[in-house]
């Protein structure tokens, strides 16, 4: 595909992977070079519209995969003597920038992976003003810090909220944070 | 950021306010006269766009998704077989079904081998999406036309099997029963097999 070629030509060594899933192209770049990659994509390939920024917590996915692999291993038993070479563990989080070229109507998704022990990403608010709230939301939901963001504060949850709710280890029912907020009348009169 | 400067020329008519205001007054006057005449008519539903609720009710669509009911078949037997599909598919998890086995001598009451020992729907949780109705293999649970669901107490909003069946009886008496769902044509496929297997799975899961 022309888009894939031009992307790989443009990013060259910075490109870690370029994959296609259900018609969407995902390019993976190193975390430190996100600003330069995005700015070159914007200026040279015309991807000058940022649709959104998506954060993903992959921990549960890796766990499930590891379990599957282990099961497989157990099943196959000791017949398979040569163990697979241990791959370095993939970083826990990923941040996906959804880009769009408004002239050619091509979409490109740029992915970076963020390890749990280094939750810092360069902010791209200098490239797009609209990256402001998506980055704040990403911080709110996953705890990924965007360096250089003008006003990095929780967006959807309240400021004192202790956790990052879209992480996979956060329970769906919450951890009881709302107790501070909701006034519960004691005794009768309350029907629950 | 510099804001763009907006300049737009007004026509003379727009410039002197009055012309457009008079036009607008004429328009509202037309509405006023029409509705004034209409409002003098006897009866609660006079102005065509206004329904005076307690006396005057609009027609509810036959496919309306309102208060639930558990339907009975022609012989007056409960259709529900307590397979629990509705409870599983419910996005709001508002349905709880307890399964009971039909004892001998009770066949006149229940259509299947199993019956719901209790069937509760929490209307406070229900979002009236209609998935339960759609997934029910025996089309036993139906969302009816009742929409006056206000209660004084939260407890009353958890409706039980008796009320569900009473709802059905009331609908039957008033002739507001929902027509049976049309089967949705599927692109070049026989869906039957998968349907049946789905049923079995559902009932098994419930038993477990």
């Amino acid at each position, binding site marked *: 595909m022309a888009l894939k070629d031009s992307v790989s030509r443009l990013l060259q060594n910075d490109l870690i992977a370029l994959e296609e899933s259900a018609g969407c192209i995902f390019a993976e770049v190193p975390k430190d070079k996100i600003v330069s990659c995005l700015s070159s994509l914007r200026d040279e390939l015309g991807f000058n519209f940022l649709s959104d920024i998506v954060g993903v917590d992959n921990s549960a996915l890796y766990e499930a995969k590891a379990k599957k692999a282990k099961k497989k291993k157990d099943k196959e038993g000791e017949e398979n003597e040569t163990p697979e070479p241990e791959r370095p563990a993939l970083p826990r989080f990923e941040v996906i920038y959804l880009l769009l070229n408004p002239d050619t109507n091509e979409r490109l998704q740029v992915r970076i992976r963020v390890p749990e022990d280094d939750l810092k990403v360069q902010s791209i608010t200098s490239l797009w003003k609209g990256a402001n709230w998506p980055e704040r939301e990403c911080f709110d939901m996953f705890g990924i810090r965007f360096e250089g963001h003008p006003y990095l504060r929780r967006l959807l949850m309240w400021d004192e909220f202790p956790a990052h709710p879209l992480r996979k280890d956060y329970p769906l029912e919450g951890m009881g944070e709302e107790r501070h907020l909701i006034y519960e009348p004691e005794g009768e009169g309350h029907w629950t | 950021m510099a804001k763009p400067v907006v300049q737009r020329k007004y026509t003379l008519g727009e410039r002197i306010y009055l012309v457009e205001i008079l036009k607008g*007054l004429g328009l*509202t006057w037309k509405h006023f006269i029409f509705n*004034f005449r209409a409002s003098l008519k006897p009866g609660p539903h006079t102005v065509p766009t206004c329904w005076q609720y307690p006396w005057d009710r609009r027609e509810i669509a036959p496919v309306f998704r309102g208060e639930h009911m558990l339907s009975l078949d022609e012989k007056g037997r409960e259709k529900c077989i307590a397979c629990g599909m509705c409870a599983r598919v419910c996005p709001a998890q508002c349905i709880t079904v307890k399964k009971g086995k039909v004892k001998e001598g009770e066949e006149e009451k229940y259509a299947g081998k199993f019956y719901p020992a209790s069937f509760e729907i929490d209307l406070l949780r229900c979002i009236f999406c209609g998935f339960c109705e759609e997934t029910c293999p025996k089309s036993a649970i139906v969302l009816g036309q009742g929409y006056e669901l206000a209660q004084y107490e939260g407890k009353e909003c958890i409706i039980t099997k008796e009320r569900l069946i009473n709802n059905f009886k009331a609908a039957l008496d008033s002739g507001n029963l929902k027509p049976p769902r049309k089967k949705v044509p599927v692109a070049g496929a026989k869906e039957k097999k998968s349907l049946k297997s789905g049923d079995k799975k559902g009932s098994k899961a419930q038993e477990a």
Partner: protein
Amino acid sequence: MNEWTIAIIKVVFIWSWTLLIATIMTWVERRGSALIQDRLGPNIAGPFGLFQPLADGIKLFTKEEFAPKHAHKILFTLGPVLFAIQAFSAYAVIPFGDKIVINAKEIVLQVADVNIGFLFVLAVGSLAVYGFVVGGWGSNNKYSLLGGLRATAQLLSYEVPLGLAMLAVCMTYGSFSLREISLDQAGTFLGFLPNWGIFKQPLGFLVFIVAAYAEANRVPFDLPEAESELVAGYHTEYGGMRLGLYLFGEYVNLYTLSALMVTIYFGAWHIPYVDMSSYLGPLAYGIVSFLVFFLKCAFFLWLFVWVRWTIPRFRFDQLMGLGWKSLIPLGLLNLFVTAFLIQITV
């Protein structure tokens, strides 16, 4: 009957009459707006919902009178009271009919025929500002304060064109007394037109009616209480009868302004081309003149309602711009032209 009894009867009558009109106006406003908007409006209480204002009144009276914790208690109560007082007293100098003869005693249908009627109306009318600003300040609420400030600026600005328009009328009729102006409007003008102010002062009337809408805080000039911007403006914090005073005061003001408009521009109680007093007996004439006057007022009251439900609202700077840049120059122009015409005709 001596003078005092008559005066007191007149005062009581006009007091209850304006209150009645104000009450009915709330019903007209609601029913009228409903019918304009393809709705029905309140139609349950009484025939056609006519008792709705009564029910509203009972509700307002029985509501708990409370003041917000941080409000200035005295000013908070003083605001609506000031507003209501000015609303009810402004009508004193405006006639509500010609005269009525009972027991061979001639009674003028006007509470007080002051020879500076115009000045009285303007002076009392401008007191409304105090009602708004005191209430807005006393509420200790930002919305209320902004509403009060808006009201102050708006009322003060629009009093100028109102005064200018009225001044031109005074010059035309050569009197400050509203009764004399009314009496002057009998007969015809230029031979075929009724001798009404509007035909002598068309531009002045335009200025006057716009300014009157602004003075009455009605759409398109209802900025002090613009509900989408300032919640409810100066009466955000009010409830119960204090709010009721503001609402009634507003409708009484409407009536006053309508009556003023009828008095100086629409020939007061005169019917064009017909001299009623020659056909009717003295008592009947008094009643008919009262009715004619009232019907004319009713039209303008309805116009207030009708316009309100037709057009959008101004912005504050546009409101000020309209007042200072359009209406005042127009009013002045009108004044000069009137003066010139008087000079060459007399």
